[in-house]
């Protein structure tokens, strides 16, 4: 199975190679899509995990014991298509290819599957039509 999570690391975790243990001890295939670390503060990681169900369960249990907050992420980037003028400015900052211009009709194409939640498009859209919605419960 493949799932995405946001991991929030409390400051006291900063010395531990937690992602390394997730991979080594729990057999999780971890793809880091985004990482933010503020010195002396929290760290935030957006990961995509490919794993067997049992491994994933154990891995999440390990994170809980390490006081890492795990947000399962079925997050949606929502584009208000009705208001879109198809200028293409959002595509300038989209590297995952989720936002692309159809170069025949010059319409904006949005493929949520490819989105890595970098959020750059939210600020690039001059009409402010892109919003990121986090759907999911806070899971310990």
């Amino acid at each position, binding site marked *: 199975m493949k799932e995405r999570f946001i991991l929030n690391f409390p400051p006291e975790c900063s010395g531990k190679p937690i992602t390394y243990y997730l991979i080594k001890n729990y057999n999780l295939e971890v793809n880091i899509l985004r990482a933010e670390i503020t010195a002396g503060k929290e760290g935030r990681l957006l990961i995509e995990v490919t794993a067997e169900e049992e491994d994933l369960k154990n891995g999440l249990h390990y994170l809980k014991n390490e006081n890492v907050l795990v947000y399962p992420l079925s997050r949606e980037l929502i584009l208000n298509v009705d208001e879109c*003028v*198809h*200028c*293409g*400015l959002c*595509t*300038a*900052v989209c590297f995952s290819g989720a936002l692309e*211009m159809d*170069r025949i*009709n*010059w*319409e904006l194409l949005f493929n949520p599957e490819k989105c890595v939640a970098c959020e*750059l498009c939210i*600020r*690039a859209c*001059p*009409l*402010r039509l892109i919003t990121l919605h986090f759907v999911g419960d806070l899971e310990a």
Partner: protein
Amino acid sequence: MTIKKSYDEINERIKKGEAVVLTAEEVKGMARDVGVKETAKKVDVVTTATFGAMCSSGALINFGHADPPIKMAKVWLNGVPAYGGLAAVDTYIGATEVSEVDSEYGGAHVIEDLVSGKDVKLRAMGRVTDCYPRGEIETTVNKESLNEAVLLNPRNAYQNYAAATNSTDKTVYTYMGILLPNFGNATYATTGELSPLLNDPELRTVGIGTRIFLGGGQGFVVWNGTQFNPSVPRNEKGIPVGPGATLCLMGDLKKMSPEFIRAAVFERYGISLFVGIGIPIPILDEEMARCVSVRDEDIETVLCDYGVPGHPEIAKVTYRDLKSGEVEVEGRVIRTSPLSSMYKARIVAKILKEWIQRGEFLISEPVQGFPKEGVFKKLCVRKEDR
């Protein structure tokens, strides 16, 4: 036999519903298939269009007098300052003016709200005089309540524009969008071969008095645009390579549509206004048919480095390459993205074509042409002022 058609002849055909009208994209196909001469014979008018962010835009408004009257010296519309130095109840609100309370709301949004028919809060203050005893006013206006609401855009429809990239290791936030570090992307304006003034590079048919599509209604070219530059170097096709001619446009805001007038926020740059513009090019002769047959591969612009002061030119690129999704510069492939909407511009060109076909829109011969020569001056800071 040489082909010559006058404005009057073309208008007669429009009135009879007989005019042959094609969009700029359609005519290029015809010119390729049957040649320029046949195209000149067959086609009467070609519609060109653009839909882009045009910062030098604004609205001229007259509120009417209240009782007792006020001479408005400070004016705000939805919290956005408007000009207070125009008689008592006239004002001009610029698209890029920013609200005093919301950095993502500005003059462009006020204009879009007025076009949409929404209510807008007016606040004004003035000096109390015998003529104007009222010192302050707060009320609500909309396009129905205003005497005049006219879009008056000092610089629109750039003939060509520089494409932008960024060589530095920091993201730069510009009116050309977010430019990522290390040539991470490039953005370009104008609709290339569909763009109005690239289809009439010598401005033979566009001048003062030209009737146009502006923001969903009919408008006019009233002057050359500011920063009008007829001296930009041209390529062998006669196309200016880089920002050239511009137009000052005017039209009745009350008859416009939010489909073609949209406020824009450029991250860490400011507010601008997307304006939909369509300009009809009459095919007076073979030369005009040749002009409108220009293709994206014939139109070049400069790619400039917006990460460096002065935005130095780093390459020349064609619109064919820009529209392909990537350009190659010194062995480096840079992803490209538009910032003018081809999608919307095509709608504009199509609507204008239909207006002409239905006889609702006549073409107009310019009352006066634009300067053929001139220098685009820089602002110098004089030694004694430093």
